[in-house]
């Protein structure tokens, strides 16, 4: 086992292109990945919107005013600062609805990531450490979860129980723990054999102490990386469910529902569907950057390209 961990640039690393424009693009990209100020600002903005939706939104997201329907965004002819992103077919303010939409997405992704992440991590730790039948059962459960077609199951569940925020959260948790469990188990398997864990065992540390004091800190990095990469896909899934009418109830100001509302009015009001899509895009990109950044931070060997 080698002790030195010097960075040897693999030939697979992307080389800098010769074309000056591409070269600048590439370096800029690496800088954004290394110091993702803009993507992080987007995420912070989203959380602020979620926390202070009442104070930030200029109008009631639910109350429409039919006389103010189909007002275009401010930068287009006929738009006013009263409604910076325009209004929808019922005269509701698109900006206010988008701000409240951030709240819905934040609630769902936080709940699902916390529950799925903690549950999956504990299952992975125990399965990896105990091995034997515990491991067998846990890994079979992971296989089953992976092979189940999520959307189809969600459709039947919703048709029986009706739409609700809680139901969607529970469904997403049931399908959102497997990734964590698999990775944590694999890392636990290798940490279990390491010297410091053996010493702890010889010292007479209890199983719980070994798992949570000694092994858990070693897997936290991966859990955070998976978690942040997972948020992006969660937000995509949640907005898709809402778009199809099986997510949160139809009156809720959620991004997927806004996009669905604007579909009938595309030739008249392009902004109703476009704005929430841009919000989703920015947030998903933000979380993907965060995940990549965390991965680099926890494992510098994975850094893609060094810029002097």
């Amino acid at each position, binding site marked *: 086992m080698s002790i030195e961990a010097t960075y040897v640039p693999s030939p697979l690393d992307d080389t800098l292109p010769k074309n000056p424009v591409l070269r600048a693009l590439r370096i800029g990209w690496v800088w954004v990945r290394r110091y993702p100020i803009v993507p992080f600002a987007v995420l912070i903005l989203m959380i602020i919107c979620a926390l202070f939706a009442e104070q930030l939104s200029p109008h009631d997201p639910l109350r429409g005013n039919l006389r103010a329907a189909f007002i275009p965004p401010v930068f287009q002819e006929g738009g006013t600062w009263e409604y910076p992103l325009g209004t929808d077919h019922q005269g509701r303010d698109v900006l206010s609805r988008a701000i409240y939409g951030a709240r819905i997405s934040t609630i769902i992704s936080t709940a699902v990531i916390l529950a799925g992440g903690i549950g999956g991590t504990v299952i992975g730790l125990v399965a990896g450490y105990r091995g034997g039948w515990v491991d067998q059962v846990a890994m079979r459960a992971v296989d089953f979860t992976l092979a189940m077609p999520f959307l189809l199951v969600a*459709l039947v569940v919703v*048709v029986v129980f009706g739409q609700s925020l809680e139901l969607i959260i529970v469904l997403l948790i049931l399908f959102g723990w497997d990734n964590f469990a698999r990775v944590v188990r694999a890392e636990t398997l290798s940490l279990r054999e390491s010297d410091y864990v053996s010493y702890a065992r010889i010292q007479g540390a209890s199983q719980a102490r070994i798992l949570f004091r000694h092994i858990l800190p070693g897997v936290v990095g991966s859990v955070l990386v998976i978690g942040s990469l997972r948020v992006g896909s969660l937000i995509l899934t949640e907005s898709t469910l809402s778009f*199809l009418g099986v997510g949160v109830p139809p009156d809720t100001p959620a991004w997927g529902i806004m996009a669905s509302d604007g579909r009938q009015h*595309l030739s008249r009001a*392009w902004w109703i569907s476009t704005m929430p899509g841009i919000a989703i895009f920015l947030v998903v990109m933000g979380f993907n950057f965060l995940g990549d950044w965390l991965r680099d931070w926890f494992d510098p060997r994975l850094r893609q390209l060094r810029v002097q």
Partner: protein
Amino acid sequence: MWRIIVNRLAFGVAIVLLITIVVFGLSRAAGDPRNIYLDEYATPEAWDAWGERMGLDKPLYVQYGVWLWDTLRGDFGESLYYDVPSIRLVRERVPNTLQLGGVAFGVAILIGIPLGVISAVQRGSIIDYSVRGFALLGQSVPVFWIGIMMILVFSATLGWLPSSRNEGWQHFIMPSIALGWLPAAGLMRITRGAMLNILDSEYIKLARAKGVSSGKIIWAHGFRNAIIPPLTVAALIFAAFLTGTVVIETVFAWPGVGRLAVQSIKNNDFPVLSAIVILFSSFYILLNLIVDLLYAQLDPRIRLD
């Protein structure tokens, strides 16, 4: 190999059974299942006959047996909304879904794999950068939004393409690209990675040293080995198709099974929805099974493990 076939087959059957148990459980979870199999116009005689038929006075496992037997014979009950057998509604729409899925699959493969190869060979070029930007975009926006934006630009604004239904080849263009984009992005990234790995290997260097033409190196030596990794993401691609079909058919008002599923939710039509879910899931699991076996056949390491 036989051991693998039996193993995977057993797993597939177990998953399908699990799904039937979930659907059956849900049909009983909401109280009397006759409430979701019969509409409010059902006569008392029909109500009693259904109770008899479903064995509602017998234990649950007997009810499940009765229900499973009906399901295996393709009897999912009558649609509450259309008053025809659910299976017939599904069967009428299957061709449309398969056509769209097939075209989109072709789009994904014909775009994803060649672009991945070109992107790897011309690493750092403008083509490489645009291709990777295209893939990144496809993976960061929801599928329904890609569809809506296409309709906004090409139908509502430019008026070039039809935005709904299936009435000729022009109707396939937007839905199949929207549906194939995400799988193409995944394929492209995997192919690029695999191709980069292989182009860097010793035997490619040997081929170069021997003076083999670069076209032959790329396609005959590199590509043939780079084709295995994309197979590993086939399961993810099928999952993307499964979700995508439901979404894209809704966006483009495509008369297929996915749209029927969404309509059944609006109509509270449990029999139709249960038929779709069970048939669609079985098909999806069958596809994954085939890919697993194909992969084992191609890669001896899995077969001999």
